[in-house]
């Protein structure tokens, strides 16, 4: 019965401990919906035919044929209906509380969402992008935060979803009884590539998971919550003499350039800043332009004028949002990166080579150790 209805209603597999009870409520509610819509339509169709106006009828039928429904009948029906809806509410709210309140002894994974990818960090120090590895048969709690806008972590097979907010942590817990793979979708509109912000939960047997973790062994100091406090925003306050590049790095982190640009050569939403300065940059219209201070400044203030080949025109203008000194600092930063080599894609840095399952990319450690925080990347105090 469960399986039949699930297939009839096109529901995906029930892959978490909560999904089958949610589906049972689903069946009741949807069957009532279908039955009430069809039932009421049939009833009125019957009456429309039964009481159709006949040719012989006078156009002014006698008034007695029009009884009004008594107030008590109305109230009774309304009361019954509310009782039905309220019963759904009780069950639904109960399940909702179960979803929202994690049991004790969860295994915690830290999730960072950003335009347009998912990153996962494990207490043991491992990281992964786009694949969330979890052990089967154990409650997992995701502690989630966003670096930029609101995203939503959605796994249809688990019947679970939770918005991921910047500046705050939200949590989501689940337990997947058996190993398998399940799609993760971003369900809150978050910009151009919202629809490709997908990932995968890979549920492994506890042994496999242990083996995976062991192979990933990161170092504990950079592990676990990628950022302990969502509100730590570092200062560019007065009285701290710093080199211009350093200031540039902080400004870039704070105004959010590093959401799209990297400092270490990995391409992201925007082109990396490593090794750009002084080169001839290929543009979308086929021409080239010299990346000098003027071009860089223009890219910040009026980014739509020259679009770099292979990138979407999505960069916002920072005109009025950056002080001149800050702009200069960023240019200085980009200058200082002129000799950083872009690593060829797919190469795993030696320190992190391990038994990574195929398809797992390893989050590159960023230049200047930029930490990933909910308010955008953060630079620790020197």
């Amino acid at each position: 019965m469960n399986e039949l209805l699930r297939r009839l209603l096109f529901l995906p597999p029930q892959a978490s401990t909560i999904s089958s009870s949610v589906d049972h409520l689903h069946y009741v509610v949807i069957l009532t919906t279908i039955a009430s819509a069809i039932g009421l339509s049939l009833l009125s169709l019957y009456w429309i035919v039964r009481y159709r106006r006949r040719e012989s009828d006078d156009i002014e039928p006698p008034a007695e044929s029009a009884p009004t429904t008594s107030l008590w009948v109305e109230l009774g029906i309304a009361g019954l209906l509310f009782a039905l809806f309220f019963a759904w509410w009780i069950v639904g709210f109960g399940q909702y509380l179960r979803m929202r309140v994690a049991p004790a002894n969860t295994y915690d994974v830290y999730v960072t969402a950003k335009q347009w990818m998912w990153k996962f960090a494990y207490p043991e120090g491992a990281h992964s992008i786009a694949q969330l590895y979890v052990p089967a048969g154990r409650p997992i709690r995701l502690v989630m935060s966003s670096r930029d806008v609101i995203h939503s972590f959605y796994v249809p097979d688990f019947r679970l979803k939770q918005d991921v907010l910047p500046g705050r942590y939200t949590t989501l817990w689940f337990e997947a009884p058996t190993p398998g793979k399940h799609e993760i979708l971003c369900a809150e509109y978050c910009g151009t590539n919202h629809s490709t912000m997908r990932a995968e939960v890979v549920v492994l047997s506890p042994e496999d998971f242990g083996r995976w973790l062991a192979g990933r062994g990161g170092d504990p100091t950079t592990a676990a919550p990628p950022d302990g406090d969502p509100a730590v925003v570092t200062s560019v306050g007065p009285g701290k003499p710093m080199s211009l590049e350093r200031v540039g790095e902080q400004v870039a982190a704070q105004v959010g350039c590093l959401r799209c640009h990297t400092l270490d050569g990995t391409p992201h939403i925007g082109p990396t800043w490593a090794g750009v300065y002084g080169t001839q940059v290929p543009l979308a219209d086929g021409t080239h332009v010299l990346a000098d201070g003027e071009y860089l400044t223009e890219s910040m203030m009026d980014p739509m004028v020259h679009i770099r080949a292979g990138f979407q025109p999505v960069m916002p203008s920072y005109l009025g949002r950056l002080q001149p000194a800050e702009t200069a600092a960023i240019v200085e930063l980009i200058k200082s990166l002129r000799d950083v080599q872009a690593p060829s894609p797919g190469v795993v840095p030696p320190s992190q080579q391990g038994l990574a399952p195929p398809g797992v990319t390893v989050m590159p450690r960023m230049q200047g150790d930029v930490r990933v925080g909910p308010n955008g990347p953060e630079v620790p105090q020197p």
Partner: protein
Amino acid sequence: MSTPRPTPLSSYLIVYAVLIILATMSLGYSLLHLPGGLVVSLVVASVKAMAVLWIFMHLREQRISSALAMLLAVLWIALLGGIMVTDVVTRRTFPERPRPTGEDGFYQR
């Protein structure tokens, strides 16, 4: 519908005096930093607003429907604010909610 007598001059002046006295009392209460300052000052403000509505704005001379328009507006403000606040104070986030920065931490923008 019988319209009440037009408001006499004395009413305006009395209301004005009451307004000034209430404002000054509220100010004093706040300067003394007594407990419940917010509640007291809001209650006083409501009394003042009602005085203005009733006498200065001649609600007393008009049909009840006019007063209802104001009443609804005020209720609606309370509704929106009240429910938003219950959300803010009862939601459990991890950690609680955006926290202020540390002693030296001063965010720039």
